[in-house]
């Protein structure tokens, strides 16, 4: 009774892994969608940007020569829509093995002495509450099925509160803490929760960054790192991996020093 395009049936000899990516139309999300589809996943891809999403699905499906990606137009701040949409997607895919929350926005306040509540609010509403709106029913579902993997995209920006963009830091730190709590709840139920903390990645969002963008990587590289971490069912990765060591140092800079830095 579904109106979605037909997916090849899963059989014991042609099993299907199903995944969904919230925030898939560009950047790391689109790169991860291409990667996962190439590795044999059937995907539900969600984004506000209908045209870009449709083009991405068409590209993936024609490369695979079968339906591997289904588009769903969705605005993450439309929280009430989530439970019904999730149910529809799981029915369309015939199951769900991997859930990726990728959606995120970055609206800097426009200077280290500027404040902008409206921007901060949007970032928290999308990056954090949007994530919680999805992760709540997904976690419950995986918990009951005693299987599944959740991937959430935090950021190196969530590891310390810095002078440049307090709202963004907060949204990503909040999401990382929420994911950690889910991990502690769900590991014992057979569900893996992976937190990804990207450094600089050459995407649209990078244009919002103020100052230098050292060690920036291509989104495809980030997608490969995420996919490998998913496969190994890891808990936390930085991409590029160098950021693990950089952030280890940054996290240990004493406040007395850190609050005097222009970083």
């Amino acid at each position, binding site marked *: 009774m579904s109106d979605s395009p037909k997916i090849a049936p*899963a059989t014991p000899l042609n099993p299907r892994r199903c995944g969904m990516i919230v925030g898939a139309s560009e950047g790391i999300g689109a790169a991860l969608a291409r990667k996962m589809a190439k590795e044999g996943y059937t995907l539900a891809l969600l984004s506000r940007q209908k045209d870009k999403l449709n083009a991405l699905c068409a590209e993936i499906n024609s490369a695979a020569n079968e339906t591997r990606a289904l588009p769903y137009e969705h605005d993450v701040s439309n929280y009430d829509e989530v439970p019904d949409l999730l149910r529809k997607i799981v029915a369309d895919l015939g199951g769900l093995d991997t859930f990726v929350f990728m959606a995120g926005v970055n609206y800097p306040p426009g200077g280290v002495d500027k404040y902008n509540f409206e921007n901060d609010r949007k970032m928290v509403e999308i990056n954090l509450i949007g994530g919680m709106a999805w992760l709540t029913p997904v976690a419950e579902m995986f918990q009951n099925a005693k299987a599944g993997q959740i991937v959430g995209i935090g950021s190196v920006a969530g590891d310390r509160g810095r002078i440049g963009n307090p709202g963004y830091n907060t949204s990503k730190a909040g999401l990382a803490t929420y994911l950690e709590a889910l991990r502690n709840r769900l590991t014992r139920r057979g569900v893996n929760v992976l937190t990804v903390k990207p450094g600089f990645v050459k995407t649209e969002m990078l244009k919002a960054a103020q100052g230098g963008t050292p060690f920036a990587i291509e989104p495809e590289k980030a997608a490969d790192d995420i996919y490998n971490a998913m496969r190994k069912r890891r808990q936390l990765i930085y991409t590029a991996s160098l950021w693990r060591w950089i952030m280890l140092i940054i996290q240990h800079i004493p406040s007395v020093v850190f609050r005097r830095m222009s970083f």
Partner: protein
Amino acid sequence: MQNTFTQLENFGHSLNAPAYLIQPKSAGEIYSAFKLAKKMGLTVTARGAGRSYNDAALNGGGIVLDLSAMDQILEWDQDTGRIRCEPGVTLEKLWQHVEPIGWWPPVVSGTMKTTLGGCLAANIHGKNNFKMGPIGEHVIEFTAVLPTGAEITCTPKKNADLFYAMIGGYGMLGIFTSITLQMKRIHSGLLTVDALPVHNLREQLSILLEGAPNNDYIVGWLDTMTGGKSLGRGQIHAARYLHEGEDKNPQETMKFKNQILPSRIFGVFPKGLLHYFMSPFANNLGWWGVNTAKYIASLSKHTFRQPHAAFHFLLDYVPNWELSYGRSGLIQYQSFLPKETAETAWTEILKLSLKNRLPSYLGVTKRHRPDKFLLTHAVDGFSLAMDFKVTETNRAKLRAMLQEFDQIVLANGGRFYFAKNSETTAETALAFYGEETVAKYKKLKKRCDPNGLLESDLYRRVFGD
């Protein structure tokens, strides 16, 4: 309505799919589940004991109705042998209810764990298919609830089109709520069984063909791992009911304690653990050893008496045997071929599997006859069921080989059975059912289920548009 999102598996542990599991206890609750499904935009599949080797009782992301709580025997007339049951009654519960007083279910599967609802949905056959037909031929009446909420009663005369389509219809037209069956009278708790050695495929088929008319049951074991001149070798078991008076003390042999399968081997070793010790042998070499030893042990012809339950329920002899096939489970490939072409087709199939080094570990042959059901799998001929172990690395190769098998079976006028084959495509199904049958089935489906609420993974695979 209480529902739990649960990961469900098939019998072979080779496929799983999550679903919202609901356990209805009445026809009214089944209808409520339909209404809920419509509201939520989901589809519904019925599930009994989950003993299908494929996706018949799976509905990925949808609703699954677990009917195992509807397991009451509603009426039992021990003079006429008529019994009315809820669909969740298992064959185990049924035979244990009727056997001690001299009755036996007319058709049973190789495991007693199956439910009557599932047995009717798949229209199962037993080792007596050539004589008794499928289980559907022993159904006097059934009631069912349709997705529209209508409660219907079907007999071979009343609502006959639905009677012959819902039995063997894989639960896609409506859901059984009660089933009335005719049991068969027995005069002993034992069967007389002849064990006959078989040296090749031709002999296997000719003994099945010629032995059938003189016996009540006939079944062959086929050593699927040996080729050459001995291709198709094995052993045939032919069994007969005892006539009245043949058993001096039927009261004793029919006692429940003389039917049940022993739970321990040599009286000490618990069989529940046996599958752990079998798994190291679940590979080509191990099963070659098992098949060869079995063949050598079967070389002499002999006759013995065996309790009904022990003869029929071989699959229950080692509990959880299917777990010995490892993490990726097993699949079963069963083909039905007319008696004229069976030898050619199976010679080709067995040779192909040996050549590809993807041998089946267990082969079982039976004798069949056609029946009147719409989605029948029967032919005037034979069936060969083959078990294959699935591994992480053999999937693509095994799949390609089974597609070749499908072509061989189709070219020889064969059919398939959807409680077993998990890889059969819609194209293949259309080829052996024929367009007319499929169109007729879909027309009935539209009538019973106008909103398309009943769908299983099997339905989408085989009948999906």
